[in-house]
């Protein structure tokens, strides 16, 4: 009987320790936006407009514009044409625009790309894990990555159709280009 009592106490202690462990793990693994100046978190995601995957690391050597968007997001609709226009202009300088479709239905996202004539590569982040790693608070949001894979400029927290965000966007592009 004494053994049973000891066993019960050990199980209870283990359960409490497990709960504490979970709490500590949760607190230490909360999503924080990556630091500007630090390395851009790498990812490999399924391509939306075609087969296969695309890894951010494979774009090393190019300045990259990471634009988080979704087809259900109203400001993203307004921003799409502007982004496509910027991409057409900056691709000549080696800049790669990469759309990251966040928490979205794939078929609706493809319709969105086709409707807005988006031609730069886009990947699908359906679960939102990559968006969470980048500390996304909503869409659209944009990051800039320089040729060495570091985040530069500012984290643009809105559509680049608004003048404040447009200024941040162009400053970010210049920082990514290293000029």
């Amino acid at each position, binding site marked *: 009987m004494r053994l049973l009592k000891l066993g019960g106490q050990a199980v209870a202690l283990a359960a409490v320790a497990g709960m504490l462990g979970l709490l500590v793990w949760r607190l230490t693994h909360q999503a924080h936006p990556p630091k500007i100046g630090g390395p851009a978190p790498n990812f490999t995601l399924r391509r939306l407009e075609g087969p296969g995957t695309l890894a951010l690391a494979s774009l090393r050597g190019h300045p990259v514009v990471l634009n988080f968007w979704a087809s*259900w*997001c109203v400001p993203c609709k307004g921003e799409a044409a502007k982004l496509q226009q910027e991409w057409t202009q900056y691709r000549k300088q080696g800049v790669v625009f990469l759309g990251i479709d966040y*928490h979205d*239905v794939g078929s609706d996202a493809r319709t969105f790309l086709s409707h807005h004539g988006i031609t730069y590569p886009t990947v699908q982040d*359906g*679960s939102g894990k990559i968006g969470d790693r980048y500390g996304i608070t909503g869409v659209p949001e944009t990051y800039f990555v320089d040729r060495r894979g570091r985040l530069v400029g500012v984290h643009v927290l809105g559509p680049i159709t608004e003048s404040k965000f447009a200024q941040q966007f162009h400053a970010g592009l210049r920082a990514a280009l290293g000029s």
Partner: protein
Amino acid sequence: MLRLVAVGVAALVFAGPAAACAHPRTSLTYLEGQIMCPTCHTTLDQSDSDAARQIEAYIQKRIDACATAGQIKSELVANFGAGILAAPPHKGFDLLAWWLPLGGVIGGAGLLALGVWRWSRRREPEPVVALDPETEKRIDELLADLD
């Protein structure tokens, strides 16, 4: 005659898709409580966000195309990951989420029963208090008076 043809065409247009399903059609109301809105972390029936409305529209489209509830859920999991389901699936590691709480409740009830059983056995019978002859005699007299 023209009116009859029009009615026939309308019946075909509206009743056609419903009749085409080989199985009972699932409903948006049934699925809404089982699917999460990925941006607001509540079930679809409790959310009015753009993302929730988009998923509802997708579900309705698939229901109209005769997809079963299971098919729709699988498609959503493939698109959004397992986190889109309000409850974990009944297989693999996820089974733990179903059985662990049940095991905890049964184990707790067992421990409680064991504790109660041990407590009830440990109690000793209450000693019988013997009356002193004086008191006993007095009670007998009182009872005799009552008769």
